[in-house]
């Protein structure tokens, strides 16, 4: 079930099991007079740039650090802008911190005003129940010209879904990114299945 903005407001006041936390939260960013099934979020100040070494390639499975890309963190204050070059990918974050209850998840969607100009903000779009932290955005510019981005801009929206399974309540979930504040590349953690498949000869 997709949640309306009215329902999101109710979840902010719910008991902890079902409470959705959004901080900072600006009530005026909601449009309660019309039926709206999404919540705008804003671009944060932290960016992580990925740069290749000579002959580098993305290889998250490799344990040899030097084969991977170099990351460079950047802080852009409010009021200043960051230019995303054509073909460039950077990691960004939401300005808001989201804490999801056990039975709510969301999908990250771009806003058409940006999408039409070639900006993609997420590839791994699902935010799972019990997630907590700022949401990392994988931003890329697919247009032929640069895109100027300012922290604080409403860059995307979340579409919230409610999961109808009481059994989830008792299930603890540990996330690699729990409590994260900066956009990080993250370490690859293969699943058991992957471990088997990747080691087959």
């Amino acid at each position, binding site marked *: 079930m997709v949640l309306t903005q009215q329902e999101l407001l109710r979840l902010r006041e719910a008991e902890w099991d079902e409470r959705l936390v959004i*901080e900072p939260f600006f009530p005026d960013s909601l449009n309660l007079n019309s039926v709206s099934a999404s919540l705008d979020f804003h671009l944060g100040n932290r960016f992580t740039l990925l740069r290749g070494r000579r002959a580098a390639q993305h290889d998250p499975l490799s344990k040899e650090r030097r084969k991977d890309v170099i990351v460079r963190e950047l802080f852009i204050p409010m009021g200043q802008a960051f230019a995303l070059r054509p073909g460039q990918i950077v990691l960004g974050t939401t300005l808001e911190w989201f804490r999801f209850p056990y039975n709510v998840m969301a999908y990250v969607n771009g806003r058409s005003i940006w999408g039409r100009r070639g900006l993609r903000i997420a590839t791994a779009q699902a935010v799972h129940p019990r997630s907590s932290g*700022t949401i990392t955005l994988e931003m890329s510019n697919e247009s032929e010209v640069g895109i100027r981005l300012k922290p604080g801009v409403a860059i995307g929206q979340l579409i919230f879904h409610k999961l109808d399974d009481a059994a989830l309540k008792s299930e*603890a979930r540990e996330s690699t990114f729990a*409590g994260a504040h900066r956009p990080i590349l993250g370490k690859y953690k293969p699943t058991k299945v992957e471990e088997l498949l990747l080691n087959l000869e």
Partner: protein
Amino acid sequence: MPTAWQIECFRDRFRSLELEISRVAEKDHPYPEPDTIYDALKEVLKSRLLHFNDVVENFELGDPESERKLQGELDTIADQLDYVAEVFSYADRVDSARIPFEILRSLSWVASTLLNEDCHTVVRLDAEYNYSILSCRREFENRGWEEEWLAALQKRRSKRKREVEENTAEQSTEQPVTVLLLGFPSYDAGSILLHALAAHELGHEIYYRHENQILEALDQAVQTVSAIGHRYHDELVDYAESNIKKPSGSGRTDDYDKSVNQVRAKLLEFMKDWLMEVFSDLVAAKLIGPAFIAAFDHIQLKLHKTDKTHPSGYLRRQIVHEYLKQALPHIIQDDVWRDLFHGVDVVNKPPTKDSGEPDDPLMPLYPVGEEICRLCLEPLSAILEDDKIPSPLKEEERIAALLKNTEEYIDHLAPPSVPFDVTGDPLSDVNNFWLLMYAAWHYRLNKSHFMEFAKRFGWAEDLGRAEDALGNLVLHGLESLELRFRWNQSRRIENGNGPHTTGAVEAQRS
């Protein structure tokens, strides 16, 4: 007389400093404040170079008076060049990506409200394990460079005016402007909870508001301990006998009077710095309770260490403990803080004679200095009571409720700033900064609670990660509080009520 080669060396020094400052100014810093410092230093170099050229041109060869004058001028210019290099070294390394720049706006906001000055903070990563503060305006003024500082500010304003069409906030006030350089230990660059020490460091700046009163209290205490009959009187006489040279030919009474005066002068040599530390501790205790001591323990591992700039960590916490017992009893009674004051007993603790460096000539006077600090507690508390800074920790019930609320949020890995009311009034909203820091340290030092938190999120084997997550929550909380404050202010303007003004602006109007 200086040779042509020496003159050339002076010119080289001017050139290399100017080039290095310009090179560092090119680096990518998110905020413009470091540029103000670099511009001001370049202004200093420019004016000193003009003076230097003037001095060299007006020198008359063969005139001994002129030669002597030239040497004196060159020595002064050499000292000034050293000062430029020193101040530049403070303002270097302020652009590291490891610095949590998010906190700078909150710190600037807090400092501006407390100090009645338009403060902009910059964090510098320090090789030393230390947390320090330096007000650039004060530093430039102390060195006689006010004009250069003002010229750099003017340059920044003009630049900003060109960049921003409507710059009402900056045009509406004529407050003094400073850049506060916070030195932060490089090894803990990302540690947010250590910024609780900002309360102590801002206390240094508040000290200057009351310096005359504090020095009067110091003078009174020095007289008390050196009076005949006081338990330290004999020690001071012994010290005078063995450490201070008596002028020959003077009588016994003269001798004694001179010795007493010399010992007093020796005491004052370090007591001014000590009292500044003690007063800043009291300011911090008023703002954030014992939380700053928890942060201090991360910085200073040798609690017994005493030197001429800092009294021992033991003495400082004894005094803070005593102050909190009187000013904020409900805070000090909280068991969470007990470990920080373990073994502290102001009355019975013997002074520490062996706590200084072995070759420190002032060491025998440190126990007397400790006694003076204790004697000054009462007048310093009274001075602080009269200061307009309110303690955010005064209301017992409110604090208890707030702690309960913030704990719940941290337990659920949600920013603890959510339960805070933000009104748009700077004087009350700024307290949220301290309350949030207080709540975070309260949570951190509650051992069972913190362990549960770590276990819940899978960090029981790595408490460092749990502490990082707590720091992230606090950082996000501080940022959010400041943004919500700005939002409320802008809403007030939109609704025709005008912004809440800071104390500084109000004071100026009155």
